[in-house]
């Protein structure tokens, strides 16, 4: 299943959105440059096809269970990596909007997890390596299997990383990994088998469709590709991971301030400074690069102390008020809803 908004933080969601948008923009440019615009109807219809075939139940004999198709690899094999990525992006957008399957903020994460790894990493680096020397049923099978398995493992690991760095669940990293990777290994095997079966069939029936994609696809502006990969991955790593290690030691300016004036920050001298400082402290959404109440999951001590301070549980009085207020809010919300409906009904009666 796709990632939901509830599991990510704005930082992670935003970072992945940027990464996805970058890759999408690059894909669009490549398609326009190669004059493959006539592919747009093909992309659309193939996208719809993969959407529909994701609902097919591929039963695995002997186990009584069944698997489903992701589709990234088939799209990449039939349309090429760029068009395949965009087709996957549209499928995921429609799923997010109409079915609530995958959040809108998490859309960037989902497209990256399900589209980028299969279309831009496993397809060119694994699948194409296998079939470059010539296509045969065996090569397609081997290429698809390994590409699907690796692609899904990468995607699953991404999900774990994104959830972990968002800090919205208590699941420890190792447990989550141990849960996700084996499940997606099984899913990957099924996807590889289905993809191999389909591509083999297509190759036997209409070989030109498969061969058209293979010729010279690994060429092209490899250096730009690597730059964009590098930037996207760096953005994720830096934004998510290295901020953990962001030093809490004073930076150069604060250090020299301490040495000269004795404090790390100048006290404001009233007047306009005071007013502006006031406004800033009220509007700063991320004071000191963390959210107002608790720190991120990595700053455990900070979150522990502020949890003890912010958590109203210790003070029974505020807890009761909190619960009372919460209940009132819910009641208010529902009442407003009914009030709106009542007003509308009255309006209809008057005009009708």
């Amino acid at each position: 299943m796709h990632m939901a908004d509830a599991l990510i933080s704005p930082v992670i969601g935003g970072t992945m959105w940027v990464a996805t948008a970058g890759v999408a923009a690059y894909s669009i440019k490549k398609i326009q440059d190669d004059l493959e615009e006539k592919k747009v109807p093909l992309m659309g219809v193939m996208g719809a096809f993969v959407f529909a075939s994701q609902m097919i139940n591929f039963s695995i004999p002997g186990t009584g269970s069944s698997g489903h198709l992701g589709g990234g690899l088939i799209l990449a094999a039939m349309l090429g990596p760029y068009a395949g990525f965009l087709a996957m992006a549209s499928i995921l957008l429609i799923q997010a909007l109409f079915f609530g399957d995958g959040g809108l903020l998490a859309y960037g994460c989902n497209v990256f997890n399900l589209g980028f790894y299969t279309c831009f990493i496993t397809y060119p680096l694994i699948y194409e390596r296998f079939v470059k020397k010539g296509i045969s049923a065996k090569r397609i099978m081997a290429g698809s299997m390994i590409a699907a398995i690796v692609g899904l493992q990468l995607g699953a690991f991404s999900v774990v990383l994104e959830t972990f760095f968002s800090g919205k669940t208590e699941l420890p990293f190792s447990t989550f990994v141990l849960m996700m990777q084996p499940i997606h290994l099984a899913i990957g095997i099924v996807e590889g088998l289905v993809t191999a079966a389909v591509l083999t069939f297509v190759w036997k029936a209409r070989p030109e469709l498969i061969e058209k994609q293979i010729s010279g696809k690994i060429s092209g502006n490899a250096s730009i590709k690597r730059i964009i990969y590098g930037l996207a991955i760096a953005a994720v790593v830096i934004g998510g991971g290295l901020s953990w290690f962001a030093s809490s030691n004073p930076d150069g300016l604060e250090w020299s301030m301490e040495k000269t004036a004795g404090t790390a920050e100048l006290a404001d001298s009233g007047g306009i400074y005071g007013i502006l400082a006031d406004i800033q402290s009220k509007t700063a959404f991320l004071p000191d690069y963390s959210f107002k109440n608790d720190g991120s999951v990595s700053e455990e001590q900070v979150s522990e102390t502020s949890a003890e301070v912010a958590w109203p549980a210790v003070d029974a009085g505020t807890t009761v008020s909190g619960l009372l207020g919460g209940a009132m809010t819910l009641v208010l919300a529902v009442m407003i809803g009914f009030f709106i409906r009542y007003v509308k009904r009255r309006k209809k009666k008057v005009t009708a």
Partner: protein
Amino acid sequence: MADFTSSLYNMRLMDELACKDTFVHKLHPLIKILTTIAYLFVVVSYDRHEIIGLLPMLFYPVVVFFLAELPIKQVLARLLLIEPFIIAIGILNPFFDSQVIIVGGFAISRGWITFASILLKSLFTITAALILICTTGMDKLAAGLRMLKVPRLFVLQLLLTYRYISVLIEEVSRSIRAYKLRAPQQKGIHPSVWGTLVGQLLLRTIDRAERVYQAMFVRGFTGEYYTGADTWVTLRDVAYFGGWLSFFILARMVNIPLMIGLLISGVIS
């Protein structure tokens, strides 16, 4: 695999809801997109231990639901399908965070708070996406995306995917039904036909796509996508967005339910 019919029905329902004529439906699509994004951003930014402060965010979906006259049961039925997966991830929280918290006289693991937070957030965020599409519709949404400078190629391809989903779902479900009628004991489709069944569908799809392209080309398609005259963003739209944004920011910064609660308990005592 009864999924096919229910998915088609669901998309059709959302389509028809988007054609209604209410205050929310008449708003500019760009405004609705921006409001949804702001809402999602704020909901997701709540810390994982905050529940009470999160509750005011309920106002947005409730108000839009009633202003847009959306059928609550049918739209929220989607939630029931998604929630099990979120519950599956969240249910482990109480076991991993065993720090005990006293809430209103009961001692519970703090993990339950995180779990509740995830559930609430998922409720809010999924509903926000659903009401966006139910009040806007795919065409207007695509026009809104164009205004946000999303490349024409992607928007066009998105619209084509959307347009052909119903066609392809019907085609795929016909094939699957024919298969099931010939293999009644079989659950799902057997590996021996994975390649041929899906492969045949794929080939038919590609031929159809070629016909679609030729039909479009013959009618003058050159890659451009025309949305007709751009509607202007009116003062009413800006006021709508501004109003909601202020409310979201207020709810995020101030724990409104707590204040209401203090007010009430202050009045009582």
